[in-house]
């Protein structure tokens, strides 16, 4: 990622478009927050006008609402329903096409153009989620070339949260609210009597080289203090908390705990939590043949440990009950992930709580097992 350069600058809000233009000029496709269909969505954007100016969100168990605030702020919302995962690890991807030629199979590993993204508005929790998926797809012995190619080309503009969401608990997971590492440029939106502006920090050579071309003066101590105060206030306003002390061990030795049955009574095994989770990485492949010309294809789709055939072996599903599927998800995320990848699989973004249709809360379920740890 190159040397980390810390020379905070200040960028006037009116000049934010310059940053976007510089990224476009460097060949990046901008993906940023857009208010659409009643939610903040990370989608292709042209410029500042697409950003959710004056929009904020309300989040709680199974609840999400966008509200108009009438404020000038551009980034005054918490986690969007979908994370950046869908761009680095696409929900559906063709892996190859194949045809039979003179009795043998020819595999065509089509080299499709790899998108070169710039993500605008990556929160600290999601930076950590990207770092987790780096360990899954790049640092795990075998490289997923599709992920790696997208990741290598991506430019990350973090925007520090100015508000904690109702289901947020990044402070518990040590992943936020302030972006500490893993970004190219980090912004903090400041709105006060000194004006509407962004504190701009660089975290990589690529970030520094883009920032150097902007009309951004060195930040005043007041700007730096104002940004720090925002992160401090957000840290104190988390909607949820999770006690992680000894949690991996507690969960691993409570696989027979009766609380799994209690969760299963509510859980629909709908897989929403895994779809919105920024670190969940499971997929299935589908092999098909064309009736037209006999060519075969392999497609990879996101899958979930909650889905029906996920654990299929000859004779049936290993995990047939909802109880065992929820237990798999929670123990993987909060316990076994440490052994597999050296960190928790949870970054405290709160999406699984917000988007659970029956309001199951990962922090409550983990706490319930801790409270009655009998093993």
């Amino acid at each position: 990622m190159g040397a980390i350069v810390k020379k905070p600058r200040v960028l006037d809000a009116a000049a934010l478009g310059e940053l976007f233009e510089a990224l476009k000029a460097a060949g990046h496709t901008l993906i940023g927050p857009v208010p659409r269909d009643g939610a903040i969505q990370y989608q292709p954007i042209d410029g500042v006008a697409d950003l959710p100016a004056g929009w904020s969100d309300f989040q709680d168990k199974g609840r999400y609402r966008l509200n108009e605030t009438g404020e000038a702020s551009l980034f005054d919302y918490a986690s969007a329903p979908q994370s950046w995962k869908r761009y680095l690890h696409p929900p559906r991807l063709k892996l190859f096409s194949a045809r039979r030629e003179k009795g043998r199979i020819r595999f065509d590993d089509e080299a499709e153009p790899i998108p070169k993204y710039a993500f605008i508005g990556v929160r600290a929790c999601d930076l950590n989620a990207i770092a987790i998926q780096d360990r899954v797809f790049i640092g795990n012995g075998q490289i997923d070339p599709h992920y790696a190619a997208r990741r290598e080309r991506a430019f990350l503009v973090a925007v520090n949260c100015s508000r904690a969401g109702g289901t947020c608990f990044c402070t518990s997971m040590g992943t936020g609210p302030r972006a500490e590492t893993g970004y190219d440029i980090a912004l903090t939106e400041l709105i006060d009597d000194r004006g509407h502006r962004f504190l701009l920090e660089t975290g990589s050579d690529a970030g520094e080289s883009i920032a150097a071309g902007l009309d951004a003066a060195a930040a005043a101590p007041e700007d730096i203090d104002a940004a720090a105060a925002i992160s401090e206030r957000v840290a104190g306003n988390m909607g949820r908390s999770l006690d992680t002390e000894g949690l991996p061990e507690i969960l691993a030795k409570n696989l027979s705990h009766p609380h799994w049955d209690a969760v299963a009574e509510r859980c629909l095994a709908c897989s929403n939590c895994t779809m919105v989770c920024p670190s969940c990485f499971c997929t299935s492949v589908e092999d098909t043949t064309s009736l037209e010309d006999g060519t075969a294809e392999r497609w990879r789709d996101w899958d979930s440990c909650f889905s029906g055939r996920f654990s299929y072996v000859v004779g049936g599903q290993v995990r047939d009950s909802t109880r065992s599927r929820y237990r798999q998800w929670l123990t993987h995320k909060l316990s076994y992930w440490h052994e597999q990848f050296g960190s928790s699989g949870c970054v405290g973004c709160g999406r699984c709580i917000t988007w659970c249709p029956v309001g199951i809360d990962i922090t409550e379920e983990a706490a319930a097992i801790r409270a009655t740890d009998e093993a």
Partner: protein
Amino acid sequence: MPEAAAVADPMVPVPYRVLRQRREIDGVHTLDFEPAEGRTPFRALPGQFNMVYAYGIGEAAISLSGDCDDTKTIRHTIRKVGAVTAGLCSLGKGDSVGIRGPFGRPWPLDEARGADIVVVAGGIGLAPLRPAIYGLLAKRERYGRIAVLYGSRSPEELLFLDELKRWRGRFDLEVEATVDHTTGGWFGQVGVVTALIDRAGFDPDNAVALICGPEIMMRFCARELEHRGMSPADIYVSMERNMACGVGHCGHCQFGPEFVCKDGPVFAYDRVEPIMTLREV
């Protein structure tokens, strides 16, 4: 971040051609494959598996069942249980498949040097153990006593019967077989394979056990071996889960903290015993 330039996609198979196929028992076929082009040696270790692709149908994880010293051909013994395996079993000489692999951790043949070896197989579980038996016999002088204990449901389902008879004729190998039930014409032992463990000749303080079969059979065998005084750390089992990618990316084969495809399929029993005794892990 590591450079990813020019990394081959581990999800794209390599074309292979069927050299020959034979029916072993009802519903079980052995297929030999050679590369469709070129002669890149295929290096694998006993206990590893490949993902074998039936054109347009899909892929299945199949253990190697041949001699791993033969780097020219790949041998798989396949039981017809679904669309992919039925597709593979219907192939004949010259037909094409795709193969990815080898994947997974092998049987600990090097670590077992100097020890007595107890091989316990149940049903089709003899197929993934056969490369280990070849490996043991190829370097016979490295090991102490070797026992091969095999159980199947019925006499008709005993796999590799000719080979079992050949092995049984050797003075440096103890081979015992048992069947769960018989309809007549079988004058061998009847009963579960665990019963053979009691009588097998090995020194529990200096033995390594290799077990492959249904999960319940492996658990009872491990328990029986522990009764005879073996340490769970010297007992190895080969686990089956839904191995789909082979490289720890798809998540399907997770078994507690393990990815069976890359941390297994062969595990020391002390590592998996706590979760193997629970349901639906």
